[in-house]
C-alpha cells in the first residue's frame, strides 16, 4: 500500500519535472517581450539595456536554475503585460474559469444521471433512442460551433418566416420558431465581489444570465459522453448477478435502479470524470475564446499573442499541477476501491 502511494507520488513529481522543463524551454523561443514594453520610437540601445536588466541574455541553464528555484516557491516572476506577479494574474482569472466549470458540471450532473439511467432502464423506448441520437450529434459538434450557434440563436436572434406572415396562424408559427436574442454572450457582465479578487456570477440574476450560454456550451460537449458512459455502465451492472440476486429477493425495481445499480455505476463514472478534467480545461479555452469569458483559457491565448512568457509558463505549470493532482487522486481512489488493481504497481 505504502509502496503504491510512494510510487504514484514519485510519478507525479516526475511529470511535474518534465512539465517544468517544457514550460521553461519555451522561454528562449517565444517572441521578443521588449517590443511589448516600449514605445515605437525607443532606440535600440535602450532596448538592449532593458534586455540585459531582465536577464534575457543569460545562458539557458542559468535561467533554468533561477526558474526552478523560484517555481518551487510558487514565484514565477512578473507578467510582462500586467506588470504583476503572474500568480496574482492567474489568481484573478481563476474564479471566472472555476465558476464556468462549476456551472457546466452542475448541468452535466443534473442532466446526465437521469438521462443515462433512463436510457439504460428502457433501452428500447423512443425517448432513449432520441437521447442516444442527440448525444451522437452532440459529440459531433465542436464546442466552439455550439457556442457560435447559441450566440446566433439567443444573443443575436433569428427570425424565420417560412409561414405566411399575413395570416394570424402563420405569424404565430413564425414567432414560435424565431428567437428573440438578447442573451448576454460576451464577458461576465458585472460580477459581484465576494472577497479579495474573487468576483462571482452566482450572486445575482444578471450574473447568472451571463453564465448561461457559456456554461451550456461547455456542458454540451461533455454531456453526451457522460450520458453514454452512465448508460453503458448501468447496463453492465444491471446484468450482474448482484442485481439479479436483489431482484430475486423481491426488492422493488426503483430501489434496485437508484440505490444499488446507480451506486455501482458511479465509481467508474467518477474516475473517468476525474480524468476528463483535462479535456474540460481544453474546452474552457475554446468556450472562453468564443464568449470572451475572462478566465484562464482566454488569458493563456492572450499571453501567447502578447508573448507574455512568464504568464505562459505559469499557466502551463499550474494547469499541469492541477492535472497531476487530480490524476493522482483518481488513481489512488481507484487503487483503493478496486482490488483488481495491483497495489504494488508491478506489471502482471
Amino acid at each position, binding site marked *: 500500500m505504502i509502496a503504491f502511494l510512494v510510487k504514484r507520488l514519485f510519478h507525479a513529481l516526475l511529470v511535474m519535472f518534465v512539465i517544468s522543463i517544457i514550460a521553461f524551454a519555451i522561454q528562449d523561443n517565444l517572441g521578443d517581450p521588449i517590443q511589448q514594453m516600449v514605445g515605437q520610437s525607443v532606440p535600440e540601445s535602450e532596448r538592449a539595456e532593458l534586455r540585459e536588466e531582465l536577464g534575457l541574455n543569460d545562458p539557458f541553464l542559468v535561467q533554468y536554475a533561477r526558474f526552478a528555484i523560484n517555481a518551487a516557491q510558487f514565484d514565477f516572476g512578473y507578467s510582462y503585460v500586467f506588470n504583476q506577479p503572474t500568480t496574482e494574474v492567474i489568481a484573478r482569472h481563476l474564479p471566472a474559469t472555476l465558476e464556468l466549470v462549476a456551472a457546466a458540471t452542475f448541468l452535466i450532473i443534473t442532466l446526465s444521471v437521469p438521462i443515462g439511467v433512463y436510457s439504460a432502464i428502457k433501452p428500447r423506448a423512443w425517448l432513449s433512442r432520441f437521447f442516444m441520437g442527440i448525444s451522437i450529434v452532440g*459529440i459531433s459538434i465542436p464546442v466552439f460551433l455550439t457556442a*457560435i450557434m447559441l450566440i446566433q440563436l439567443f444573443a443575436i436572434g433569428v427570425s424565420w418566416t417560412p409561414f405566411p406572415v399575413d395570416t394570424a396562424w402563420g405569424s404565430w408559427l413564425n414567432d414560435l420558431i424565431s428567437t428573440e436574442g438578447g442573451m448576454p454572450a460576451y464577458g461576465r457582465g458585472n460580477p459581484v465581489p465576494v472577497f479579495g479578487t474573487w468576483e462571482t456570477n452566482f450572486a445575482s440574476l444578471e450574473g447568472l444570465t451571463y453564465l448561461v450560454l457559456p456554461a451550456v456550451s461547455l456542458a454540451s460537449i461533455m454531456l453526451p459522453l457522460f450520458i453514454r458512459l452512465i448508460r453503458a455502465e448501468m*447496463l453492465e451492472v444491471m446484468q450482474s448477478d448482484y442485481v439479479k440476486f436483489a431482484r430475486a429477493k423481491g426488492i422493488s425495481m426503483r430501489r434496485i435502479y437508484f440505490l444499488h445499480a446507480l451506486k455501482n455505476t458511479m465509481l467508474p463514472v467518477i474516475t473517468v470524470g476525474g480524468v476528463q478534467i483535462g479535456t*474540460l480545461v481544453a474546452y474552457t*479555452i475554446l468556450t472562453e475564446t468564443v464568449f470572451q469569458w475572462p478566465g484562464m483559457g482566454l488569458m493563456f491565448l492572450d499571453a501567447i499573442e502578447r508573448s507574455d512568457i512568464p504568464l505562459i509558463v505559469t499557466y502551463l505549470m499550474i494547469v499541469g499541477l492541477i492535472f497531476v493532482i487530480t490524476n493522482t487522486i483518481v488513481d489512488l481512489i481507484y487503487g483503493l476501491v478496486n482490488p483488481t488493481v495491483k497495489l504494488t504497481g508491478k506489471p502482471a
Partner: protein
Amino acid sequence: MNAPSSALPSRWERFRDSYLLYSFKRDIVAQISLMVFIALVAVAVLAPWLSPMNPYDLAQIDILSSELPPFWVDGSDAEYLLGTDAQGRDMLSTILYGARVSLMIGFGAVALQALIGVCFGLLAGYLGGRIDAFLMRLADIQLSFSTLMVAIIVGALVKAIFGGETFSAYAVPLLILIIGLAEWPQYARTVRASVLAEKNKEYVDAARVMGLRSKRIMFRHILPNTLSPIFVISTVQIANAIISEAALSFLGLGMPETHPSLGSLIKAGFDYIQSGSWWITLIPGAVLIVLVLSINLLGDWLRDVMNPRLYKG
C-alpha cells in the same frame, strides 16, 4: 445463401455474405451516413474541378463583392450560391477547398497516429516488461492531459518556435504532426490490449517455436488479428482529428486564413456574426458538423457490429 461456384468463396463473395454487409443493409442510418461521407469526400477531392472559382487565386477576388448573402437571402448575387466572405471570396468554393484541407489533415493525422500507436502498441504488448511499463505510462500521462489540450499546447509552442510565417507555410504537415503526436495513445492502448489477448494463443507459440523473428511474428501474425479494433477506433479518430484541427484553427493555431480549412473559415467568419453576416461562419460550421457526424455515425455502427459485447451486456 448462394452456393459458392468454386470450392473456396472469393473475397467478394465472403464480403457479400458477411455479417457486416448484412447489418449494413438493415441499418438506414449507416447507409445515409456512408453516402453523405462519400459525397463530401468526393466533392472535396474534386474541389478544383467543381468549384466556380479558385479561392487561392487572389486575382479572382473582388473586394467590392464582399459579404454577399447566400442565394435564399435578399440581396444575394446568383454568381455566388452560398454568398461571399469579407474579402469577396466565393463561399461555396472556399468551403469545398476548406473541406479538402480538413479531410487531408484528418486522414494524415490518423495515419500518423496509427503508425506510431500500432508500433508502440505492438512493442508494448509483445515485449512487455520495462518497455511496456514505460510506453503505457507515457500514454497514460498524455491521455490524462487530454489529447486536445496536448494539441493546443504543442500547437502554441510549435507556432511560437517556428514563428507565424514558417508555421503558415508548413501548416498542413505541422498540423498532421501535432495531432498525430497528440493522439497516438488511443491506438497504442487498443493494439496492446489485442496483442495481450493474442500473444498466448497457440499460433504465436507455434511461430516462435518455428524460430521466426519477433518482428515477423508481430507484424505478420499478430497485427492482422488486431485489425478490427483498429478499424473501429480509426473512424472515431478521424472525426476527432478533424475536430482537433478545426479547434486549433479556430484558436489561430492552425491553418492560416489565406489557405483556410473549415476551422479557420469558421474563425474568420466569427468576426462578422454580430454584424449580421452569419453565413460566413455558420455555413462552413454546418459542413463541418455534417462531416463529423457522418463519420461518427458510421463509427457507432461499426462498433455495434464488430463488438457486439456491449449490446449483449
